């Protein structure tokens, strides 16, 4: 069995175990026949959303790390997650006004995700407009950083305003800490096309990303339209991030840790790394969501807190190992 085949076997097994646990772990008694089908249906939709969010975050992580030739880059570097979070917080702050506006064409539970998507795409539009054609990758990096700071500041301003109303403040905090509980079929239906189509299309850019690993000059000399490749990869990474924030809120570390952990096993070529990260991200976030249900606390721990608590130490271990093996200077 090759190393890649072994990696895929482990990934599929990990996802399978996480999926099984996701169905059978949590509040509610499955032995109660009256509740069983309802509980399983709710958990199935929660699972579907978790898988989509995890795959999207890890997929965005691979794309961003390839784009910046840096295995330590995370999807938040483009400013999209901050934009999506700002969109979500804005929706929550304006919730009563939006309900009063009678937006009958959109189901109430999708107002928040749609706000996230609009925030993310606003951020993406600004990034592409500011950087323009021919901008260097450093300009993209700095612009993403500044947009991210701006949106986070605006989000913090809205959060401080939201504290005036206890319920609203609680909703905003819960959203920013991330979570997939109470996510249903409409959320999955909104995210599925975005994640599926973007992932498939992003795979088509894997050879471009491989060439970009050698730097923009070498890639261009081998026939890559570097400017176009960079802009499209930014669009795909941002769309995946937007979809993930729309259904899971602000979940940290998945996009950073999963591709970084898988790269030594799949190799750096994106044709192998992208699909492995999609599955790895889904398994990681599903396992983290199971953890939110079993940790002995009074209430449910937010998903973003668990991914941070698990992801940060795991990332430090990976980083130390990579540094020891000379893979990172």
């Amino acid at each position, binding site marked *: 069995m090759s190393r890649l085949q072994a990696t895929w076997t482990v990934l599929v097994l990990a996802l399978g175990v996480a999926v099984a646990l996701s169905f059978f772990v949590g509040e509610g008694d499955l032995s109660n026949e009256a509740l069983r089908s309802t509980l399983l249906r709710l958990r199935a939709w929660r699972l579907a959303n978790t898988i989509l969010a995890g795959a999207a975050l890890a997929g965005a992580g691979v794309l961003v790390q390839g784009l910046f*030739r840096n295995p330590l880059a995370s999807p938040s570097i483009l400013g999209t997650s901050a934009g999506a979070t700002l969109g979500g917080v804005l929706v929550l702050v304006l919730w009563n006004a939006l309900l009063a506006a009678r937006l009958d064409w959109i189901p109430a539970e999708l107002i928040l995700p749609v706000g996230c998507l609009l925030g993310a795409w606003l951020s993406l539009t600004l990034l592409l407009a500011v950087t323009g054609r021919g901008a260097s990758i450093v300009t993209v990096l700095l612009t993403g950083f500044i947009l991210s700071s701006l949106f986070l500041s605006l989000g913090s301003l809205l959060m401080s305003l939201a504290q005036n109303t206890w319920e609203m403040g609680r909703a905003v905090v819960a959203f920013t800490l991330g979570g997939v509980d109470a996510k249903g079929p409409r959320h999955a239906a909104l995210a599925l096309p975005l994640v599926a189509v973007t992932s498939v299309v992003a795979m088509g850019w894997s050879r471009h990303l491989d*060439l970009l690993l*050698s730097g923009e000059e*070498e890639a261009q000399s*081998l*026939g890559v339209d570097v400017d176009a490749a960079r802009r499209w990869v930014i669009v795909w990474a941002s769309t995946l991030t937007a979809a993930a924030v729309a259904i899971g809120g602000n979940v940290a570390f998945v996009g950073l840790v999963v591709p970084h952990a898988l790269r030594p096993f799949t190799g750096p070529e994106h044709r192998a790394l992208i699909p492995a990260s999609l599955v790895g991200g889904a398994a990681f976030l599903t396992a983290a969501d199971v953890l939110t249900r079993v940790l002995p606390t009074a209430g449910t721990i937010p998903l973003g807190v668990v991914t941070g608590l698990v992801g940060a130490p795991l990332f430090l271990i990976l980083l130390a190992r990579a540094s020891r093996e000379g893979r990172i200077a």
Partner: protein
Amino acid sequence: MKGGLQVRDLWASYRRGPDVVRGVDLDAARGSITALLGPNGSGKSTLLKALVGLVSSRGQVALDGEDLRTVTPEQRAQRVAYVPQRSLLSAPLLVHSVVAQGRFPHRRGLRGLGHEDQKIVDTALQDADIAHLACRPFTELSGGEQQRVLLARALATGADVLLLDEPTSAQDVRHALELHAILRRLRERGAAILVCLHDLSEVRAIADCAVLLECGTVHADGPADEIVHDRHITPVYGVELIEGGGLGFKLARGGES
């Protein structure tokens, strides 16, 4: 001229900076090796980069009479291959994968290497004498071996115009001589080779023609033996050639030998 690369009145600069290459004319004929020489900062590397569109430039760049500045990046990469002095690749891609990247301008979609692509990659590995390194990670190779891999990747593009930026700078004497042999074989197959060289003895050893640059302009061009001569070298480099028994230099105007 037997066809090949024709450059007329080429100007090049980095972004909006001053022109580094200023009005250069040169020809790189098929079946010949043309050396680009000049002191540090004379514009040799920038000129090569301008020919493959890596820096902004204006002027005429034609291959067999066709304007290369109007073709797509992929079409240009199929016809003109560029070998940088060193690669920025820091990911542990296998040598075979790096060489296979040379097939990028010929491939579409997600499919792997086709049978024909595979044959071309294998031939490129053999031509660059690195078939034995195919399964090694690129990042674990020496600088000289990495330069061979970059040459093989350029050969895998199928381009018959090769632009090489100081390909022997990281090679020991034996490997440099082996590289000379590879370049001669490529010349015999009809490739047009334009190569930046610092070592003037190498120019005499392998080049048919030479273009001597000074401050971005052509100081002299012609047969390599004629260009590597005090008449041209001394005013540009400030050194004098020491002929006989070997090739050496001494500083002009009273410098040490």
